[in-house]
C-alpha cells in the first residue's frame, strides 16, 4: 500500500512539474513571438527612415 501511495505521489509531482514547465514554455513562447514582431517593426521603420533620407 505504501509503495502504491508513494508512486501515486510521484505521479502527481511529475504531473505538477509537467504543468509548470508547460506554463513556463507557453509564457516564453509568447514573449519570443512578441519580441520577434517588435524587432521586425523596428527594422521596418529603420528601413523606411533610410529610404526617406535617400
Amino acid at each position, binding site marked *: 500500500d505504501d509503495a502504491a501511495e508513494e508512486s501515486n505521489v510521484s505521479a502527481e509531482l511529475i504531473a505538477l*512539474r*509537467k504543468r*509548470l*514547465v508547460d506554463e*513556463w514554455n507557453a509564457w516564453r*513562447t509568447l*514573449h*519570443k513571438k512578441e*519580441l520577434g514582431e517588435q524587432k521586425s517593426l523596428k527594422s521596418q521603420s529603420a528601413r523606411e527612415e533610410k529610404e526617406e533620407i535617400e
Partner: protein
Amino acid sequence: MRPILLQGHERSLTQIKFNVEGDLLFTCSKDNFINVWFSHNGERLGTYAGNNGSVWTLDVDPESRFMISGAADNTLRLWAVSTGKCLYTWEFPTAVKRVAFNEEGTQVVCITEQRMGHQCAIRVFNINKDGDGTNQSKEPLYMFNPIGSKATVCAFTLTPNVIITGHESGKVALFNVKSGEEIDNNERAHSDVVTDLQLSKDRTYCITSSKDKAARIHDTKNLMVIKTYNTETPLNSASLAPNRPYILLGGGQEAMNVTTTSARQGKFETRFWHKVFEEEIGRVKGHFGPINTIAVHPGGTCYASGGEDGFVRVHHFDDSYFRSKPYGDMEIMD
C-alpha cells in the same frame, strides 16, 4: 568545480559584472577601486583608480569599450575599459548607488541617494561614443525624482525611455524617464528593500532579490510576478543562469549579526534554485561573510560571487552541471 579566488580587493565587494562576451569580469568595492580580471584564469588585467569613496556600482557597454561606475564620492565616472583611464566625471550632491547601460550602450541610467535634504534622483545621460569618449555632456538628458519610496536598483527595459526600478519599500515599478511618470507598479513585489535586479538576456523578464529573504521573477512589461523563491536568509543578489533552468541567490546575515549566530567560517553559500519548480537544488559554500553580489557568465559556463569578506570567487561549471537533469527530460526554454 574548483573555484578561482580573486584576491585584490581590500574591502567588501559591492557589485560584479561580466562583459557581453564573458571573458572579462569587472568588480567594484568599498576599497574605492574597480578591478578587471580574465574570467577563465582569474588573472588581474587592470585597475581603475581615482574614486575617493566606496564604489557602489558599475556596468560595461556591449562593446566592452566603456565602463560606467557610481561611487560614494558623489561621482558617476566613464572609463576606457582597455586603458583604465577615467574619461569623464559627473558630480552630484549625493552618492551614486546604481548605474546601468541600455542595450545599445548609448545611454546610462543612474540613481543618486536621498540624503541631506536631497531627494533620490534618477538621471539618464547620453553617452557620446565619438572620438576618445572624453567629450560628454555635463547635463543629463532626463532627470526626475521618483515619487514615494527611494529607488535602489534600475535597468533599461526593451521599451525606449522606460526603466524598471526596485525600491527601498519593496516596490518594483516602471518609469517613463522622459516624463518621470510612474507607468506601473507592484507595491508588494517585496516586503523589504530590493537589493538586486538582473535582466534576462532578451530583457523580457528580470529577477529581483530582497532583504525580505525572497527572490522573484517579474515580467518586465507588466510587472507580473512569474516565480517566487523563498529562502531563510536576507538576500543581496540574484542572478539568472543562461541555458540552464537555474537561478543563483546570495546573501546572509549582516556582518554585525554574524557573531550572535552559529555561523561558521566559510559557510556563506550561493544557493542554486530551479527556476521553474521554485525548489532549492544545491549550495556552494566558501565565503567568510555574506555574499553581496553574484553574476553568471553570459554563456552560462561559470559564475562569480563577491563577498563582504573582500573576496571574489569564480566557479567554472564542470560537465556534470551541464549533463544533469535533476527533474527528468523536460525541455525548458531560457
